[in-house]
């Protein structure tokens, strides 16, 4: 476990290639959108990051459940890794969305259901990370993290629904007439291809980072054990 396995190295290279291809597609293959121009291209990365961010939450909740059931530390390491990298992916999604929003909607932020739920999810991630920091005993930390990950994950649908209901009754004033504000703009063939490839590339990127992070987690655990046994 000290040296990087061959498989991981190959996966790293693949990830790099896929991401390069995705970037290339976005800038050279996908057509420039009529209404928004170059800014629209942010979407290819924005949605991919958001998707990966939520995927990470699902992974973490599942890992948490399995940890509670089986009690093996590796599930906790995996769950922590998932949340930690999802925190960053989701933050990138939020910021890239904001960058897109400024020219498109003339505002950096709006409190519509999706964005509000996104900010709450990000805060749940932050709370999870703070929670881990505050517990020294590894078993307790693992249990608490698992419980919170499950709770957090299950709260998201209810949160989204409640905010959706809240905002449809009191419509938000800001929100462009631009149909892509609802995420349902018409995509031509090349755009669709770019979009899905970007989604795929980021998913691969997520798995690659997760793998690395889990490896790091296992090494950290090893150090912790050595330190503890020495004392």
């Amino acid at each position, binding site marked *: 476990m000290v040296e990087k396995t061959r498989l991981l190295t190959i996966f790293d290279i693949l990830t790099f290639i896929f991401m390069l291809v995705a970037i290339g597609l976005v800038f050279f293959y996908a057509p420039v959108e009529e209404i928004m121009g170059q800014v629209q291209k942010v979407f290819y990365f924005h949605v991919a990051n958001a998707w990966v961010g939520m995927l990470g939450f699902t992974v973490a909740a599942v890992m948490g459940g399995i940890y*509670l059931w089986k009690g093996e530390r590796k599930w906790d390491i995996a769950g922590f890794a998932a949340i930690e990298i999802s925190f960053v992916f989701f933050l990138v999604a939020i910021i890239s969305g904001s960058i897109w929003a400024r020219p498109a909607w003339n505002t950096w932020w709006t409190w519509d259901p999706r964005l509000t739920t996104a900010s*709450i999810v990000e*805060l*749940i991630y*932050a*709370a999870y990370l*703070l*929670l881990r*920091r*505050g*517990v*020294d005993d590894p078993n*307790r930390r693992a*249990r*608490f993290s*698992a*419980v*919170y990950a*499950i*709770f*957090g994950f*299950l*709260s998201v649908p*209810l*949160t989204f*629904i*409640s*905010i959706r*209901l*809240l905002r449809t009754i009191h419509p938000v004033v800001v929100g462009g007439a631009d149909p892509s504000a609802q995420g349902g703009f018409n995509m031509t063939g090349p755009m669709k291809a770019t979009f899905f490839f970007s989604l795929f590339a980021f998913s691969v990127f997520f798995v690659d980072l997760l793998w690395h992070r889990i490896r790091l987690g296992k090494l950290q655990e090893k150090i912790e054990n050595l330190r503890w046994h020495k004392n």
Partner: protein
Amino acid sequence: MFAHFKSYLQAVGAIIWKDMAAEFRSRELLSAMLVFALLVILIFNFALELDISTRSSVTAGVLWVTFAFAGTLGLNRSMASEKDRGCLDGLLLAPVDRSAIYFGKAIGNLLFMLIVEIIVLPVYSVLYNINLLQPGLILVILLGSIGYVSVGTLLATMAVQIRTRDIMLPILLFPLAIPVLIAAVKASDGFLQGFPLADIMTWLNLLIVYDIVFITIAFMVFDYVVEE
């Protein structure tokens, strides 16, 4: 089978009785929660323009912010005293199902929160000349408090075992309690403004769903949160 259930209920009842008895001797928790709630209402008086025209639209929000903060205080103190005096260890050694501890503490916390709310309502009514003693509003307060306390008790049990104990509970609880707060505020507002019941039902349903889902999950995972 029935005997087992009966002893379970006895355990839950014993824990509630213990908390109530301890509290009514010292009254330190309730007085702290109550004073804090009144202070929050006072601050809102200056923070928001609570003149007659805007008052009716913000009352629901002010009330629920007050209850959320006071509730957090109560939850923290309630679980902290368990941990500090070693009561929690004692309870864990007792031959009862761990979930009985959860229900006992949760119901105890709920009663504290309800007592504070029942006192705050008439005080607010007098201070702002709004009649808050309506059955619909009281129902919302009950449902909302149940939801808040069921998640809060579990998270407080975790939070008191963490180093940064006092600050952790709000950080952990507020993101998860958003659906309760939204639904409770909208439903309270609906009753106060006299909206038709059909409109308010959505929010009441949301509250009920939240309560059921989270009480169930909390009950299932409580063991993991207290085991040594």
